[in-house]
């Protein structure tokens, strides 16, 4: 308690605004203030600490209310409200419990660092923040949770706090855009890969003559398409998140869809992990549930690979690998997700079929008979023939 009071008094400026006093800092924050540019965020931070200080001044134990979000639950009745974007209950963090006191201490310290980042117009990573107070932050996860809490509290996304990670995604195809004044002209050489920009808010001037966007799960498949010059002969944009997509890739994808309004197809391995990546693109991830609204792509269509494709495209039996115990466990857990039954029943039945057959296969297996099969036959025929769900 002392530690927090010291931090709060030493480091924050006081700015009194409205005479209305709230006992609970979080309550006031939950009034919808949708602007998240740095000035507004700095104001919100000041307001938040003002409320905390008021509580302390009046001898009341300060507490913070955080909204809880989730994107799915395991309720099979279909009557849950996970599909709405409202929060599912609140969590109150107060100084009454010792573990909460630590959590509040961490939150305030991280908030201080973020305030500094916003004021100096600088960006930092989660790891950098962890190393700033290694004596207090026992591990990285503690900092990650504080950052998530702050996003919920200030009703913004992580990038608004100037907390960024390294970019993982790659893009190629018939696309031209500007990032902070620099031109990315993929149209000149459509089969050349470019990294997906990390500062997506600085992307502008998006121009494209593509007819669709194709997402691939793995870098190896992306490379295969680049090597076969897929984009030279097919009018499209290809993106990969290289596994589970990171936030910049998902934001960039959303930006492209909002600007270009093109159909989006997703190509993943026919295994539980591929399916999980597919659902991450479509529905969002639990970790970033508070931001799911801005990150998910409900328009995405599953192009492949389906369990039924192995027979349809003559995949040799030897390329079908057995599902491991871990795979089965993951698939069973995914079947319970409420959003599948409600919004993607066809996807759910394909997953069930995969489990029944007990085998999985990778996209690379489709190249076993002929190297260019994927680029020349599989993808174009599926898109033209409507072989997606």
């Amino acid at each position, binding site marked *: 308690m002392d530690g927090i009071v010291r931090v709060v008094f030493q480091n924050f400026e006081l700015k009194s605004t409205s005479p209305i006093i709230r006992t609970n800092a979080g309550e006031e924050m939950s009034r919808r203030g949708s602007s998240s540019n740095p000035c507004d965020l700095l104001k919100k931070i000041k307001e938040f600490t003002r409320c905390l200080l008021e509580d302390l001044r009046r001898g009341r134990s300060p507490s913070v209310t955080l909204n809880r979000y989730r994107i799915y639950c395991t309720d099979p009745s279909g009557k849950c409200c996970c599909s709405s974007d409202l929060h599912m209950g609140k969590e109150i963090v107060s100084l009454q419990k010792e573990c909460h006191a630590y959590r509040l201490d961490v939150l305030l310290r991280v908030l201080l660092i973020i305030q500094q980042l916003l004021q*100096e117009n*600088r*960006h*930092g*990573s989660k*790891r*950098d923040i*962890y*190393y*700033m107070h*290694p*004596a207090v932050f026992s591990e990285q996860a503690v900092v990650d949770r504080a950052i998530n809490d702050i996003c919920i509290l200030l009703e913004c996304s992580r990038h608004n706090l100037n907390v*960024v*990670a*390294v*970019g993982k995604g790659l893009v190629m195809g018939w696309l031209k855009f500007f*990032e*902070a004044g*620099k031109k990315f002209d993929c149209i000149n050489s459509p089969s*050349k*890969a*470019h*990294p997906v*920009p*990390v*500062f997506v808010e600085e992307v502008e001037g998006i121009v494209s003559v593509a007819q669709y966007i194709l997402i691939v799960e793995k*870098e*190896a498949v992306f*490379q*295969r398409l680049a*090597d076969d010059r897929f984009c030279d002969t097919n009018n499209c944009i290809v993106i990969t998140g290289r596994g589970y997509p990171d936030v910049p890739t998902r934001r960039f994808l959303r930006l492209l869809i909002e600007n270009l309004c093109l159909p989006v197809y997703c190509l993943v391995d026919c295994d539980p992990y591929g399916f999980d990546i597919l659902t991450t693109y479509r529905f969002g991830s639990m970790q970033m549930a508070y931001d799911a609204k801005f990150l998910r792509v409900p328009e995405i269509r599953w192009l492949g690979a389906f369990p039924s494709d192995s027979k349809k495209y003559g995949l*040799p039996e*030897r*390329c079908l690998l057995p599902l491991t115990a871990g795979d089965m466990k993951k698939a069973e857990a995914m079947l319970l997700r409420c959003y599948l039954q409600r919004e993607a029943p066809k996807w759910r039945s394909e997953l069930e079929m995969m489990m029944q057959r007990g085998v999985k296969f*990778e996209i*690379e*297996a489709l*190249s*076993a*008979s002929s*190297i*260019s099969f994927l680029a020349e036959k599989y993808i174009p025929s599926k898109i033209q023939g409507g072989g997606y769900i």
Partner: protein
Amino acid sequence: MEDFCKSSLFYSDQHLCYAEILPPSEVRARIEVAVLNFLRTLISPNPSISSLPLINRRSNNRRVSHGLLTDVSSIFLSHSFCARSLMKANATKAFVRVWKVMEICIELLVHEKKVTQRELFYKLLCSSPDYFTSQLQVNKTIQGQCPTGHDVVAFLRCSRYSLGIMASSRGALIGRLFLQEPNQEIVDCSTCGSSGHAITGDLNSLENLVIKSDARYIIVVEKHAIFQRLAEDRIFNQIPSIIITAKGYPDIATRVLLHRLTRALPDLPIFALVDWNPSGLAILCTFKFGSITMGLEAYKYACNVRWLGMRGCDLHLIPEQSFIPLKPWDLQIAQSLMSSEMLQENYREELTLMVQSGQRAEIESLHFHGYDFLGKYIATKIVQSDYI
């Protein structure tokens, strides 16, 4: 100058074995020669197919060549062949695997196509199921770490890339540099945004790059996160430099580009900024000497990289809680580094310190002193010539 450098190594080049990056026609020719040689052995009056000359990849066959005039050391495998009897079933299978891979490679080369190792695995699984059961087997057949030398790279003396196996390039660079690929626009690498300029995986075009720069140093960075931090702070303008990263363990494209940069800009010293742990040192050594395990590809792309940080002398800058215990994997790497004779004495001391303390530290821990500290740290070290 180039020829002079080559000839200044006292082991004459003709006896060195190294894997070159060759055009497809050359690799096809080598495969055809290998087939003819094998057939000749089979039909000779005393067919000695029970033994075949293969390059010995054992550690006692690795030599270090220390350049006397160029300050560049590299590792290579010398012409010590080992004879392998084909009377043992396992040896025969391993030998046949090499031929199966070459069969697919020649098909790829004829059509000028490339594959990934995973795709190669599936092709082999379907065409020769009795010989290939796992991805690991395929990888070892292409470029083995086992001492038998039953691998395609050693057999044909050409790099994996030349066989038609796709190599992805992870590397990026940024800084005071103008690059021009043949028939392309000039790229100004100081205006690339914080993700930098991506290094292409096309090794041929890297060899033909036109390079122009007014930088005074080249800084090699281990991690992508640090690269992004330095790029955002535009360190390359305060310290006129080129910053390059392979985002982890260096791939061949990044090493080729670094080598090209040193050849084009020979007066620029190269500094490495790695984490204080055995993996960081291993990454530095790969840039410096070549890959420890892949002796054949090392030779050509070694560069004189100096260890700027983090080193034992910097540990006082970091609070105690920022240290992390070493994992078993780190200790394994430390052991294999220690056992290689090319590690110079001062590096060996640092490694011993790491292992004895049982801890490691990341460069990000320097952020304890604020975001500006990293730039100042690098500048101070360069100015004080504090590198080994």
